[in-house]
């Protein structure tokens, strides 16, 4: 579903932020990108979700090139990142209606969908409060609901459990597993090991813009002869990270 081939990215005149990255995410698979801050995860995800254009290489989603068929791709992906914020003065209700209109969801379907997803995440009691009055966790849940408003086939979540308590994280993770069961492809970036370990079928370790190793959590642990996945990550990181 997501095919990334030798992708590199350079902003204006700076050095390469993402260097020659390739991977594949199949249907019904959860793929994790794991790396420290500044490794290039967000840039990579923004490229996959058509917000940025790769300097080199190609990205295909459901067979379509992100450089050319942007609009068609945006219709089939749901993208969530911490950089995208919700209008602080709107209410969840208004936002849902607004994005429903933008995604051209049939008018009679909007209230039905809204009720279903708001109840699932426990947003209903807050549906008429302004975003600025809500907690971080609630905001994140609303973001998730809105990014999945159009039932996308490909889901790209940048740090979805960032700033959430254990209960809410659990809720989000369960939901992702549910989506996986429905045959959706999920690309997930995180720096939390437990999330990566529990959720992902395959994990790519990203250090300084390059994928240094790839495989399931167990595979990586075995490959690096570590006690657990966390240690495996540190070994890989110290091996490949160049100072300065």
């Amino acid at each position, binding site marked *: 579903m997501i095919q990334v081939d030798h992708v590199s990215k350079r*902003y204006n*005149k700076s050095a390469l932020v993402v260097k020659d990255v390739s991977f594949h995410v199949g249907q019904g698979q959860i793929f994790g990108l794991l790396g420290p801050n500044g490794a290039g995860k967000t840039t990579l995800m923004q490229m996959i979700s058509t917000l940025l*254009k790769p300097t080199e290489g190609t990205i295909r989603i459901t067979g379509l090139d992100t450089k050319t068929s942007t609009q068609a791709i*945006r219709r089939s992906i749901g993208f969530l990142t911490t950089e*995208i914020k919700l*209008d602080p*003065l709107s209410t969840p209700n208004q936002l849902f209606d607004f994005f429903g209109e*933008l995604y*051209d969801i049939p008018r009679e379907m909007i209230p039905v969908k809204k009720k279903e997803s708001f109840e699932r995440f426990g947003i209903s009691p807050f549906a008429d409060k302004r975003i600025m009055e809500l907690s971080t966790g609630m905001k994140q849940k609303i973001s998730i609901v809105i990014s999945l408003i159009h039932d996308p086939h490909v889901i790209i979540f940048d740090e979805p459990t960032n700033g959430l308590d254990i209960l809410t994280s659990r809720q989000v993770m369960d939901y992702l597993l549910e989506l996986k069961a429905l045959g959706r492809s999920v690309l997930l970036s995180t720096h939390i090991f437990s999330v990566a370990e529990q959720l992902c079928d395959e994990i790519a370790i990203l250090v300084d813009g390059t994928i240094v190793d790839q495989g399931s959590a167990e595979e990586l642990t075995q490959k690096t002869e570590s006690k657990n996945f966390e240690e495996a990550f540190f070994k890989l990181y110290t091996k490949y990270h160049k100072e300065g």
Partner: protein
Amino acid sequence: MRRAIRALVRKTFGKNHSMKTQASVITLLCCVGFVIAVLAYLSSLALYWMRRERPVNYAENIIVVNPPETWRKFSDRFLSDYQESVAGEKGMLIYREWDAVYDIFTFDTWMEENDAFLTIVFPEDFDEIVLEKEIDELPEILTYFPSDHPEYATTRNDFCETTLSIDYLRYVQIMSGVPFEWGDFYNTSTRPSGNWASWGKIVKERSSRMVMPLLFFIGILYVCMLSGMNAIAGEKERGTFSSLLMTPLSRGTIVLGNFIGVFLHAMIPTCVLLVPTVFFARASGLLSILLLVISLSLFIAAITILISCLNSSIVSAQTTFLPIFLIILVVCVTCMQDSTKNPINPFLPIYGHFYGIGDGMMGTVAWGSVLVCILGTLLLTGICLFVSERVLHKEQFTVAVETKSEKQLRKAAKALAKQQRDYVSVSRAKVFGYTSQRRKSLLSFLVGHALLPLALLSLFQPVAMIPALVSYMKSPESTKFISMFKDITSVSRISEVFDASVKVFSGFMQDKYFILCMGLGYWLVIAIYIGIVRLREKNPLSTLGFPRLTSSDPQGPAWKAYVRGLGLGLILISSVYLLLLLTGQVTCDGFSLETDSIGLFILYILMWIPQGATEEIMMRGYMMPRVASRFGLPFAIFFSSMCFSLMHAFNAGFSILALINLALIATFFAVFAYKSGHIYTVCAMHTVWNFCQGNLFGLEVSGNPGSASILSSSATDRASDILSGGAFGPEGGLCVTIVMAAAFGVLFLAEKRKKSKKSANV
């Protein structure tokens, strides 16, 4: 796509975030000020119109001021039939005597009272000059007329050009036996021109051609700025724009949706303003106005959307838009002037809109230019929207770029370092407990401190001068003074005129209203300084040299410190006067205060109190601690003293010695204030110093002659300017230097004694 556009349009009508920025507040204030100015202009026209309520059928008389003998003879002989000659009404020559030949106020009143349509003013010594026979040019004769009598324009011109210029000239030539030419012939209007009926027309035309277009422009510009900047730049600032970009909408749809929203916003003021237009304009005019304002709103909306796309925050977008806003306003102003109307302008956007709206109001629509202008505007609108759409494809305008290039990083580090350097509060010297909170750049710091007193004084002094100036115009002295300006032919004349102006200003020192207004003005300046310190700096008043002193303080309560200052000041200035007497520079002519100048004397006292305090607050209270905190105390004393000294450079008789003396006095006050920790005492010293010079001993105060003085003093024959200071007063002479040197000595000794006492106690 239609649903999406509708949703985007609705979104622009959501809560507006851009109203709270400073740029929008400044723009709003500009707009309000602008409209008020134009309305004030119009209402002044209307006031003139309303004043004209005299009946049209009135006797037409001529006022002749200072008629010379030749004129009386001339009029007896040739103007005896004058009564029948003017407009078939009874007309008379009314003779008056008046010294001030430029006093338009008096002449206007006379003409109003006597139903005169012309005033002829002869110089007082007209006959003497003419009959001396040695001139080749007649002295000037001035004529004044109220120009709102257009029905008498012909009569007036006939009278001036035939009777006065030819017949009377010939008569004078015969009398004197010398052929000569007229000098300049002045024909001065005392009121703007027009008549009863035409005023209404003028006011309607001006309001149609100036106010209505301007209101449309300001309304559309302001509303577009608020909503346009909020639409895309605001979304970027709040981080919600990316979620919009992630939807399957094309960039074009996003631009279009926001554009329509902003346009609909602009239609709100437009619709409101169209309501009064309906009552003024005819159908065709209304149609043209409607088309023009719609195209204008589209164009401005497109510009704001383009700027919004290019910027990533509301403030930066508004700041970008502000120059465009001002340029358009300037274009509006040029459109208000008839002289800029050329055949091409009505076809151009903005120009064409302004003229077109005015034409529509007046019912003189030129459809050709209106249509060309609208088409041009629509084309520009399309270009703006196209560019906006292209801009949204560029990554740098849509997604926040995380990684910065090396150059950007270096720049950011530099900016941070500068910020830290500028904002760290390091005080080099602490005066009156002041510590700087923020560092400005060196130049703006010094210029701000040196120019603030000048700016404030130059703001209120001319205002205080207005009543004095009006009464001066009515006095005979003004005649000579104004005629000086006409004779400026060389540089040396300019300096003469300058000296004369200074003298005129000094003359105002005898005017009650001037003294009163000055006093009030000084209080105002004090209030401004208190405002600066309390509201802007948010510092206590003690940093202005006004700490709260109680009786437990070693110096006693504030009033005691003030009274001590009065005593010390009296001692200082008395020693100067004594020295002047002893060296034989001046003689005391005894008691001179007259009973009718007691009022002025009291006003003087009331003026000197805030005057002394103001100068002390400016230089010692405000400037010294602030300069000291950055450059140290010695420089602060030097700088404030030089500023104080140079502030008097425009006074009469200013010399190098005066500069040095004033700097010495200022330095003494500065050191005294610094040592005492407040400025109560120096305020009183300053007040009493000036008061005694001007109103006790009758000397000049820094070049200003004293009046209403208790004693009167005059310079002796052997007085030298070096010792006595000449026209500048004692402050320009060596006597003050000597006394100030002695005062420094006493101050030094007192400090030394204080120190030794302290060490003895320890």
